């Protein structure tokens, strides 16, 4: 599904400086949940933004393919239409943008790009009401401008609402669990598990073992200094939580 090969990336611009990603290689096949852990500043968010197509970063070498197709030449919205979804570490507040209208416009834009029919206003309303209940966002919250005045946890719920609504083929979750309470973690697990039908892939960035009790990962990778320095099974996450990242900071 998602294949990353020797990916190097730096900040765009004249004085972009040294690479932040220094040769990331990762293979996340359909049906699997891959976890990325790693110290602050190691490049986890950069990796997720580069996969999603943020123009602030320049890929200096390497490839990213999705079902064998090159992703790096595509605009962010084209990647979204192919089914790449990023749950942002710090979701935006966008004053003046009506939440429901935006989510429906985005969903229909994706469908249109895929050559599918639009969802009707009534069907959309029914679908989003159900998902909103699942992620724990009230009707009142949906009526507000997008994320305006939301707590950190509510913004993460809004990310999960969109993930549940778009049903993307590949979900990148950048510290979705940070700042969430125990019940919300369980909800995130439910959203992921409902989408886990063998055809989708997941890249879950986290610092904590806790979320992984709800989402059983297949592989765990440690990203340090812009490289994947260790990969292993689910037991690696527990090991890391016990021993910390110190060993890898040296290595990087």
């Amino acid at each position, binding site marked *: 599904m998602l294949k990353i090969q020797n990916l190097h990336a730096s900040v765009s611009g004249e004085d972009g400086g040294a690479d932040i990603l220094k040769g990331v290689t990762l293979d996340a096949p359909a049906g699997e949940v891959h976890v990325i852990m790693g110290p602050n500043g190691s490049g986890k968010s950069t990796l997720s933004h580069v996969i999603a197509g943020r123009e602030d970063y320049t890929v200096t070498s390497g490839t990213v393919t999705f079902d064998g197709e090159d992703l790096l030449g595509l605009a962010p919205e084209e990647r979204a239409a192919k089914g790449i979804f990023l749950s942002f570490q710090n979701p935006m507040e966008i004053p003046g943008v009506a939440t429901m209208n935006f989510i429906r416009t985005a969903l229909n834009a994706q469908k249109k790009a895929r050559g599918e029919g639009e969802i009707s206003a009534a069907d959309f309303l029914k679908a989003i009401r159900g998902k909103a209940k699942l992620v724990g966002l009230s009707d009142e919250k949906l009526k507000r401008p997008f994320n305006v005045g939301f707590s950190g946890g509510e913004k993460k719920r809004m990310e999960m609402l*969109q993930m549940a609504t778009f049903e993307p083929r590949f979900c990148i979750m950048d510290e979705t669990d940070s700042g969430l309470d125990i019940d919300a973690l369980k909800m995130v697990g439910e959203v992921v598990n409902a989408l886990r039908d063998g055809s989708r892939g997941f890249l879950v960035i986290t610092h904590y073992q806790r979320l992984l009790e709800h989402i059983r990962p297949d592989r765990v990778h440690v990203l340090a200094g812009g490289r994947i320095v260790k990969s292993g099974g689910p037991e690696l996450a527990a090991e890391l939580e016990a021993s910390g990242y110190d060993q890898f900071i040296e290595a990087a």
Partner: protein
Amino acid sequence: MSVYQKIADDLVERFRPAAESLPANDEKRAAFARFSKVGPPHRRVEGWRWSDLPAALRAANGAASSGRSAAFDQIGAPSVNIVNGRIADAQAAAALGVVEVDEWDDTLDPCDWRDRFSGLVDLNTAAAVRQIRVEMIDGAAGAVWLRHIFDSREDVFVSIAMRVGNCATLNVIETFEGRAPFVSHAAIARTGKNASIARTMLQSTEQSVVLHSSFGAIIGVGGAFEQSSVSLGGRFARHETVPWLVDEDARVRIDSVALVDRDRHADFTSHVAHDEARAITRQRHKGVVDGNGRAVFQGKFLVGRSAQKTDAEMQANALLLSDRAQANHKPELEIYADDVQCAHGSTSGALDDDALFYLRQRGLDEGAARALLIEAFVGELIGDMDAAARPAAAELVGEWLRERTA
């Protein structure tokens, strides 16, 4: 003779034939004399630094108008067509009901608050052929849409006097469309006690228009003045708003939106004079500028010695969509009372890259994402507009956005 004196003299001579072609009238003569002496605005005149009227007039021409603004079809209020400053459908005007709209021979003169207006109001007084009168009787409430259509190879002078009786409410929508080499619009409203006037101004004239409009309102005790406007600019378009709160407990809301692209210029200038206690004034301006456009905002709050407990806020925000786009903001507070709350703020910047990426990650293409953010930027002000004019205002914004991405 200085270069600016020459510019001023040229302006006077440009307008002299229009003023002198009218039947002799002392007031008009006096007004033209005042205009000649102190009136012609050029860039050395206070308040005209960023708006170069003489240059715009030199480039102005007599091309014919190419059409109407379709967005205005959505306005839901009884209309009176005013073509080149004259009521074109007297029957419609006569059938309005509580609002009376007609024409008479009178001149507009702000008299004792003249110095808050630009000299162009004197020119308007001198050159307007007739005056349009809008009258709302005591205790009545109603709406009227003054649809100004310009289709002239000559300069056009529109003069309007409004009167709103005690405890009356006038909802007036003024729209501007078409073109003329120069359009001068001047209106003065006088209100009684506890009267309110809500004005919506939508300007969607042709690219080549040179337009100056000014609206003055005297607000009595317990009165309210609300104004919302959308201007698409022109070769030159300046809108002046001059409310005078002569008594206690007045409430004012002034919202202005400017959307300018290409070589267009939009100027919103206001002067709110608070004379007596406990007025509440809220002013918001949003300018969106693309291409070589320029949006000027000049807002002044004058708070007199007796205007204790005045509560006044002004906010101006500009969104710059290109490297050459310009926004000039000049907020000004002149306060003589000691127990007041006055504040102003001003920002200008580009579209937020983080927000753009977020929207695109969700599937919107770049054009749609930009349009959504621009709409959001002006959306609050459009949302607070009078319901009869809101769909037309939203359509103006939509048209502007579509034209840019087309």
